[in-house]
């Protein structure tokens, strides 16, 4: 199996597997970058409604094609049908949210379930039809690569490339609309049209991704990559790039993994790969990751305890907090019996002195740069120059020794 995976990764596992892997990578890039603006505009869930609303379109397109004498397997035809019903679903969500007193989340819930339910009814009816080639229609639910044709892969690859180009072209107005819609309007951007373009993009990605990952999971390809990317950067252009990369990589690796063993479903594997990337990022990302936050919090807590402890020593007060005692003992500022060492007394005196310096400095310099940086922890030497501190010391008088 490992060699099978290697073959798949290097596109050596056969023509079909290579086709699927490349298609999935392009689709992942398109979905990741397109989903970025959806995520930044805080409308991630709308894509779920859009995805579920594709199902009745697939069913109706199949029936129409069979009625007109085809076998119903024509992929562009099925995708066209799904696009039409997805736009109807989208319009329904927007109409409910803007024209009634219902909020968008309620509209999404209603539209999603009604369209999906109707689609399932149609699929059931289709199974009982005597003509047409029904097998494989359920693969629109969870996606499948079995029996994928070259032309299917071309549709996915072309659509994915177009979607990426579209995102690059509209990245500026879309960023502006997502950040500040009022300002965007006042800059001459038509916000409604831009939202429509964004949803159109999401719909296109959903529709071309249907065959590969299925309508239930395609939303994950839109949302997980930008959410993952957000953990790594504070810049919109980089969120876009990283999301595209995460999406493309998960598509590629997921498709290769599913090709390396029989009967591994492609869509769910792609989603699991991107989820693994998300989980790693959530834990280990430097700025916004969970571990980084824990470490930062703990360090801050220790600094606060150290300062409180030193001030207590300076005032000759007893320390009861066990964490404070531990911090001071570890730095050998106090002995085991909590009596200050030589070093501890010196540092305590300095802390008290700095506290007095700060108090005076905040009176003398009433600007933000000085008083804004006072938090009890920032060393005064990092805010004021040496001669400024000397002047403050002169006004404070000689330091009092700590008993």
């Amino acid at each position, binding site marked *: 199996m490992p060699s099978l995976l290697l073959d798949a990764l290097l596109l050596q596992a056969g023509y079909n597997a290579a086709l699927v892997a490349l298609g999935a990578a392009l689709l992942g890039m398109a979905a990741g970058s397109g989903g970025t603006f959806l995520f930044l505009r805080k409308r991630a869930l709308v894509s779920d409604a859009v995805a579920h609303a594709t199902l009745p379109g697939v069913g109706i397109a199949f029936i129409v094609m069979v009625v007109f004498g085809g076998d119903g397997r024509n992929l562009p035809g099925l995708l066209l049908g799904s696009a039409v019903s997805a736009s109807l679903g989208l319009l329904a969500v927007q109409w409910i949210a803007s024209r009634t007193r219902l909020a968008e989340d309620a509209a999404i819930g209603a539209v999603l379930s009604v369209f999906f339910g109707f689609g399932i009814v149609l699929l059931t009816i289709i199974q009982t039809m005597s003509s047409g080639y029904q097998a494989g229609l359920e693969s629109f639910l969870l996606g499948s690569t079995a029996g994928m044709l070259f032309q299917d892969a071309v549709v996915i690859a072309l659509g994915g490339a177009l979607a990426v180009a579209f995102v690059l072209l509209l990245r500026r*107005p879309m960023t502006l609309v*997502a*950040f*500040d819609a*009022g300002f965007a*309007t*006042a800059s*001459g951007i038509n916000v409604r049209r831009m939202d429509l373009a964004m949803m159109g993009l999401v719909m296109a990605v959903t529709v071309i991704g249907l065959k590969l990952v299925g309508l239930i999971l395609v939303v994950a390809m839109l949302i997980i990559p930008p959410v993952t990317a957000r953990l790594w950067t*504070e810049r919109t252009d980089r969120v876009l790039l990283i999301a595209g990369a995460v999406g493309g990589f998960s598509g590629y690796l997921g498709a290769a993994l599913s090709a390396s063993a029989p009967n591994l479903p492609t869509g769910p594997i792609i989603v699991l790969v991107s989820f693994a990337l998300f989980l790693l990022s959530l834990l280990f990302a430097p700025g916004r990751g969970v571990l980084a936050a824990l470490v930062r919090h703990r360090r801050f807590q220790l600094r606060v305890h150290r300062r409180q402890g030193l001030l207590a020593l300076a005032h000759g007060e007893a320390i009861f907090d066990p964490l404070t005692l531990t911090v001071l003992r570890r730095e050998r500022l106090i002995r085991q019996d909590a009596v200050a060492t030589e070093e501890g007394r010196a540092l305590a005196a300095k802390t008290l002195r700095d506290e007095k310096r700060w108090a005076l400095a905040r009176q003398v310099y009433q600007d933000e740069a000085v008083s804004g940086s006072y938090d009890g922890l920032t060393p005064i030497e990092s805010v004021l120059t040496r001669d400024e501190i000397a002047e403050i010391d002169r006004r404070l008088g000689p330091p009092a020794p700590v008993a």
Partner: protein
Amino acid sequence: MNNAALELASEAGERVFRPAPTDSPLAMQELTVSYGEKPAVFSIDATVPAESMTAIIGPNGAGKSTLLKAALGIVPRLSGRVMVFGAPLAQVMHRIAYVPQRASVDWDFPTRVIDVVLMGLYRELGLLHLVRHHHRERAIACLERVGMADFADRQIGQLSGGQQQRVFLARALAQNAELYLLDEPFAGVDAATEKAIIDVLKSLKAEKRTVVCVHHDLATVTDYFDHVLLINVRKIAEGPVATTFTAENLQKTYGGRLATAHIDQLKLPAA
């Protein structure tokens, strides 16, 4: 049509727009906006004089911000007309800069201070042009004007409220407009920021640009502005601060909500 004919026509129930003076940077005629069936702004006429500093003043819920947003096409108008530099809004968008309320955006958005200021240049950059060194320098120069050049690479979530407001102002400066519309630029900012902002606004006026602010602090009106528009859903009064910002007009605008004692303490223009 002369005035007498206009009045006859409007008495007969016809909708008549009086011709606005073409030189006004912002003229509103019978502007009405409503959320649902309750008007937020009702039939307001106003003409902002060129190169002035105009304050829009009124109590909470008087429709001050709504008026500004309707003038910019951010909220739809129910009726009425807006002319900017004597032309319909769509033709003169590039001559306007807008500073929205600070609270209207998500400050956890993945963007840095410099990126926000560069947004003021998007109109100029279009879809395809790359951000070049001279664009960046212009953005830094705008940050310099509001005293924020050192913060260019900070994530916007790390800024204080006053600093956020300054960044928004810098973005508007980057647009290099002739008409500046600001929604509560002094709300909840520290004293240093208030000073920095008013200095920039006064320098804009000195550069022969027009500034319009939604403003809530009655105590500073006479110091900061030369023209006022008092509204409370309807227009109460409009004119130069010296003749319009009077105790009588304030009482009409605020009704019982503003105690007479409070008005007495205000620095009103000498009658």
